């Protein structure tokens, strides 16, 4: 696979949030305002790239019996590092992300990329894969939060539209989050011309390269 494809597959074709449906929890929880969604996207992208690089470097050292605990320790280390940095230098962003910053540890996108990609590929490809997935995650959060902030708060990136618009509070509640999430997934499905087949074969599955089931799911 070329390096460009390694990077670009995360943006639309294998978008972690909108196609693979991973990391739904932070996607719904941190997209009430564009600024916190971008902060979350940036923090996750940083952790994703760093953990992919380190895990790719360590892939021959880590025995397969303890690979998941090792991945989680590395990921948790980077997440704690990011939270120390944000707490001391960007306390406002740290406040707005709240508990979801520490929950990046258990974000399935990061563990998923470590298991499916970084532990099988070289360092450069793993870093690009992490960057692509991170950009895809951030873009998905950006689109979701833009829709929710514009409709639900009557502002965008903190700039208010003025008093003529009465915000629809529904869109920043959790229910509105699911509504926007479903709509965005549907639009991405149309864009990628992905239609469910009558018999859902493995060739349609975004995880087919890493899957050991071979049709047993």
């Amino acid at each position, binding site marked *: 696979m070329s390096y460009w494809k390694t990077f670009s597959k995360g943006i639309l074709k294998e978008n972690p949030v909108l196609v693979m449906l991973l990391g739904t929890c932070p996607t719904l929880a941190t997209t009430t305002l564009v600024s916190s969604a971008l902060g979350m996207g940036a923090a996750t992208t940083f952790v994703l790239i760093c953990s992919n690089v380190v895990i790719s470097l360590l892939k021959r050292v880590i025995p397969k019996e*303890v690979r998941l605990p*090792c991945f989680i*320790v590395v990921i948790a280390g980077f997440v704690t590092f990011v939270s120390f*940095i944000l*707490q001391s230098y960007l306390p406002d962003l740290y406040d707005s992300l709240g508990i979801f910053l520490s929950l990046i540890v258990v974000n399935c996108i990061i563990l998923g990329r470590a298991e499916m990609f970084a532990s099988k590929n070289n360092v450069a490809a793993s870093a690009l894969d992490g960057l692509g997935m991170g950009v895809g995650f951030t873009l998905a959060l950006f689109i979701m939060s833009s829709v929710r902030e514009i409709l639900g708060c009557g502002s965008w990136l903190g700039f208010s539209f003025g008093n003529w618009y009465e915000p629809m509070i529904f869109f920043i509640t959790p229910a509105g989050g699911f509504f926007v999430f479903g709509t965005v997934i549907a639009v991405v499905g149309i864009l990628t011309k992905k239609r469910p087949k009558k018999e859902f074969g493995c060739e349609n599955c975004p995880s087919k390269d890493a899957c050991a089931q071979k049709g047993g799911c």
Partner: protein
Amino acid sequence: MGKYKNIIVPTVVLTVIAGLVAALLAFTYEVTGVGDLGTGLTQEELAEYAPVVLPESDGSLQLYEYDGGAADLLGVYVNESKDGVALHIQTVGYGGKSKPIEALIGLNQNGEIQGIAIVSSQETPGLGTKIEDEEYLKNYQGISGSADSVDTITSATISSTALRDGVNFALEEFEKLKGEIFA
């Protein structure tokens, strides 16, 4: 040999990785100084909040040593002319006990609220953060005794109720300590 490969090597590798990560984090903790971020307000923060919480008095706020307060009373500050007091309190909102709302509440000698500043909060952006709105906080101005007459905010019910409880707590604490400060 099987035992060595299946049990000892994985254990050693995992221990070494965990130890390395812990050491690097301890180093970061020292460098960033996260542990030194105390609960007290810095001089810059006091200078920023003083005109908000006590708009009618000028001059800076000074920490007043007061031991009798409850755990949610984080600090007591008095202004230079000794006719206004600001209570630094915390109250549990939507963020839970580990992420309380911290507010600074300014009162005059008669126990009337002069102004409120939100020092920090981890409420939901767009919903709970509406309690930080200046227009909303103005509803508390002039209130004494009990803040129950102030309405909560639709879509920020838990956060605004928590703030109101915090203000009521501050008003109670004020009754206890006013004799000592304005003696």
